[in-house]
């Protein structure tokens, strides 16, 4: 397709001037205004908007997946009965890789996208603050909706407000547990024990203590029922002999 050449005749030029003046005066009289007066009006947001991240502590298995996938390095796991993620909103880029990574659906996105914090310190949201949406003081009284049809686009203002939604889509995953595939290759380094947040790996027969007291020889590990399948030991094992398996 070739772009048409623009004609240079004075008549065309005059026509274009008239077009400009017409359009400007039309807009001055009946404007197609699209501005939303933000703090006083709130837009209706689609449900899948990626906003503030809400944590359900009862579901969290402290698997650290969210912290490890975060491209901006914004998630810090802090100890609070167990390890739970806290998001540093100074760094967060709202890619929601963490929400997609959560194997149990503990993290959920909400449509809250505008947050104001009093200080930089406050932006490092703690796990217990992530349990529910932050309390907000809002000035908005009406909501605005984009009405798009084939004929055009206009804003519809309504004197009602919608609550911010928390959208939790549970992943279709069965519960998993760690298993040792090749016990014969175990180094006996007990890294898996150290890293396990649930103390699910126990030493059945340990005869070496860390204090340097020689008691005996070797150690045997056992993965108990406490295992929730976070997979931390799988990633920690230097010989890669552990793996996650689905259990009934």
């Amino acid at each position, binding site marked *: 397709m070739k772009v048409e050449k623009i004609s240079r005749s004075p008549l065309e030029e005059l026509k274009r001037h008239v077009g400009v003046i017409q359009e*400007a005066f039309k807009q001055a009289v009946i404007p197609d205004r699209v501005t939303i007066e933000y703090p006083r009006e709130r837009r209706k947001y689609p449900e899948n908007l990626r906003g503030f991240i809400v944590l359900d502590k009862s579901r969290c298995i402290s698997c650290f997946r969210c912290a490890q996938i975060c491209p901006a390095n914004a998630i810090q796991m802090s100890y609070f009965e167990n390890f739970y993620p806290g998001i540093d909103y100074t760094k967060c880029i709202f890619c929601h890789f963490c929400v997609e990574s959560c194997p149990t659906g503990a993290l959920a996105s909400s449509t809250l996208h505008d947050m104001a914090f009093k200080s930089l310190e406050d932006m490092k949201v703690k796990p217990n603050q992530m349990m529910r949406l932050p309390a907000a003081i809002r000035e908005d009284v009406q909501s605005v909706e984009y009405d798009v049809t084939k004929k055009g686009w206009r804003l519809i203002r309504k004197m009602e407000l919608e609550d911010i939604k928390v959208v939790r889509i549970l992943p279709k995953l069965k519960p998993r547990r760690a298993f040792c595939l090749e016990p014969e290759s175990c180094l006996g380094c007990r890294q898996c024990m150290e890293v396990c947040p649930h103390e699910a790996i126990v030493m059945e027969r340990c005869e070496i203590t860390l204090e340097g007291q020689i008691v005996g020889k070797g150690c045997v590990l056992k993965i108990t029922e406490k295992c929730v399948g976070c997979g931390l030991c799988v990633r920690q094992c230097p010989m890669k002999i552990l793996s996650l398996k689905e259990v009934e």
Partner: protein
Amino acid sequence: MISTLFEIFKSNMVQIPLIQPIIDYLMQIPLINFIVALILWRPFFAVVIIPGLTVLLLYLLYIVWFERKLTARVQWRVGPLEVARPIRGAIQALADGLRYFFQEAIVHKEAHRPYFVQLPILAFIPILLPIAFIPAGNVVGIKSPYAVQLVVAFLALIPITIIAIGWASNNRFAFIGSVREALIYVSYEIPFIIAVSSMIYLYGSGDPYVAVEKQSIVPGAIMNPIAFLVFIIAMLMATSRLPFEIPEADQEIAFGPFVEYSGMLFGLVMVLAYEKLYVMALLFVILFLGGWSGFYCELLGDLNAPLWLFIKTIIVISILAIVRSMYARYRIDQAVRYSFSWLIALSIVALVIGIAVGWIV
């Protein structure tokens, strides 16, 4: 001495029947009566109250807000709103002015310090002087049969201060801006003067009273529409409004001559163009739109004429404000070419029409 002055003031006071009882009451109090007489002394009233300095300030507050509001409307926006929300942000200009007032005015090291500071203030002289000569009915500062010519002559002085400002700034962009200002100055001034002189030929005199009187039936805009058009375009060029915002062109040369200004001084140079627009619009109304003639209200008395003049001026400027949202900026060579070809040709046609119509009438 004071009593002679008082007598002079008293003999030439503005008569407003609406507030006459209050004035009569005030005239009985000593000292106050002197002040009231001074204020209502016709020359003083014309220069300081209306259409002079006081309404000029009001006009500035209004036009800055209105222009922004209108532009925003055309551009699908809302415009300034948060300063005084109940009146739709109408005192936004005042807030801006306050901000400029309290901001530090920096004079950089390589600028010519005395000129850099003085020139924005000096530029007000050629703007305020024409106001003394522009009459509104019988409220007039200095009565002169050559008022139109004088106003045009004073207006021609303003670009010189702007060029000097660019020189004093000692900055690359300010220098380029000054050169552009000089170029556009020569290119609009000739058609502008020819258009004005065509109207002078039409009315047979440079006296505003004659001009207004001759427009009592048909306004000048209809008698000489070509001059009307030339005057409007020259007005846009003279006040560097889009599409001829060439000397200031903030995306190209970063506000040109005013690039180094900040604080109060920047506030002063910013309103320079608006004030120039006001004076030119006053002249425009007198020459083309019948001046102060309009519906006469008995109660207002002498105030009728200045009010009509002011209202007409405001309407003209408000309509012109929309141009800002319509056009892009021409290049300097294009602007000069247009004015030296089309505009001069049009103005000469206007001159011929002016002579012809003036001869008939």
